């Protein structure tokens, strides 16, 4: 209840900020726990439009929970979450379903609809929006071509490898070109080559469509690659940012013990003298 009161109290301030382009994602003092055990405690951060936040952290530190919070699939116990300036905690459920048109999400275990073909999985959102069949077919092929899986269009999820499933899930998330993307461990449990392919896709989405993204990963390499590379449209491949530069829009965040242990650029991360971070990097 206290949270709701707060909303109306500084409602005017929010409106003023909203005019100066609101942050794409903003967590304010967010806390959540399960069965009396705190998972996230007083988390505050924001991601500006076009930024990519890479979430690192040990298993069970609440990375997946954070993405679900950002998509209002679960509600925080305390605190406020704003997406594109809208407080999703006070938004009515039905409105939230429409609001999710701006958000694409991939799940840790892909979560493809196993009774639907790859085509129907990718087409799902456009079918719901009553787009005509021709446009759907064209866009589905386009999205599948983006993830280099056009051949698998008539297959069912059970017939795909783990890496292929991840890529179909990415195609399903990006088909309507949402402004915000939430990737949960897109490279989890995959071989290095497939992982690199997927990171390249994520980078392409970031640099070509300039969408905002939260990306969870266990692999430090992913964070390094995303921070030090950019996507070159003419060669259709990623390349190192010249002069050992880092992407200014990529932020790295390390979660630990219900809190944020580190947040900053890759250079800051490497320079950090926090003992936990040093140890984390040495892994």
């Amino acid at each position, binding site marked *: 209840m206290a949270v709701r009161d707060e909303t109306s109290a500084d409602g005017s301030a929010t409106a003023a900020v909203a005019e100066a382009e609101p942050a794409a994602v903003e967590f304010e003092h967010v806390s959540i726990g399960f069965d009396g055990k705190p998972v996230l405690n007083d988390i505050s951060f924001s991601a500006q439009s076009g930024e990519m936040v890479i979430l690192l952290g040990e298993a069970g530190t609440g990375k997946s929970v954070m993405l679900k919070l950002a*998509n209002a699939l679960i509600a925080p116990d305390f605190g406020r979450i704003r997406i594109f300036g809208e407080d999703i905690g006070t938004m009515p459920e039905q409105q939230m379903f429409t609001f*999710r*048109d701006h958000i694409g*999400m991939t799940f840790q*275990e892909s*979560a493809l*609809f196993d009774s639907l073909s790859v085509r129907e999985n990718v087409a*799902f*959102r456009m079918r719901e929006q009553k787009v005509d069949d021709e446009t759907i077919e064209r866009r589905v092929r386009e999205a599948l071509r983006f993830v280099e899986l056009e051949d698998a269009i008539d297959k069912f999820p059970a017939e795909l490898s783990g890496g292929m499933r991840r890529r179909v899930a990415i195609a399903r998330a990006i088909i309507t070109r949402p402004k915000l993307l939430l990737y949960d461990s897109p490279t989890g449990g995959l071989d290095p080559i497939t992982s690199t392919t997927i990171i390249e896709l994520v980078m392409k989405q970031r640099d070509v469509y300039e969408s905002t993204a939260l990306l969870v990963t266990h692999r430090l390499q992913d964070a390094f690659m995303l921070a030090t590379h950019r996507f070159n449209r003419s060669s259709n491949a990623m390349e190192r940012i010249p002069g050992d530069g880092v992407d200014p829009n990529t932020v790295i965040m390390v979660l630990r013990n219900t809190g944020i242990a580190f947040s900053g650029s890759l250079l800051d991360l490497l320079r950090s003298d926090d003992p936990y971070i040093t140890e984390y990097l040495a892994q």
Partner: protein
Amino acid sequence: MPIGELLREKVLAVQEYSLLSWNALTNVFRKPFYWADLFTQADLIGFGSLPIVMLTGFFTGGVLALQSATTLAQFGAKSVTGELVSLSMIKELGPVLTSLMVSGRNASGMASELGSMQVTEQIDAMRALGTDPLKKLVTPRVLSTIVMLFFLTIISDALGTFGGGLISTTMLGLEGAQYYHMAYQYLRYPDILEGLIKPIFFGFIIATIGCYFGMSTRGGTQGVGRSTTQAVVVSSVLIIASDFVISRLMIGVFGR
């Protein structure tokens, strides 16, 4: 688990169930409405259950005739067998047995299907894609179960009466005309009304319980198994309990 905690959990479950049922019903008037899913489910529930419902109806009518004729003969009232069979079928056994059959087939089916979707995060994925799972998954199941169970019950009633007639004429030496005359003559509108109201409630129970246990599944494949069993057990018990309540109400209103 302490009693208080257990009680709290049960109350919460009932509250969640009521909310789901209420939403499933009010969604009928909210856009979008998923016609294609409604027809798929209707086909699955209605035509899929037809063979078992017909067989159960037929044999129940038959065994009713068999059992009652023997007893009635002791009082020299064997001729009223038709009345007994048709009244029992239409008021009680048709609705209840059909519902129990459909519950075993479809409450379990719904619980396991939605349960698997829940534990593999497909339900969350659906929400993330901007689709309300209650509208797309639950409402079509509830509506189609109610409508299909209504017609399945009528078919079961008819086959039960026919089965009773077949046994009466072939094995019990009753005249066919006499059997059907008795079966029809003592039937009153309230009896038919009672027989047709019941499947509407039972259908609602089957689908909402099946979907509720499916949607609230936790704990992997084992959880899916647990939900499936619970859905069948709870919906069966609720069917029989509500049958009693509805029957009592009807007797209160119509006096029979």
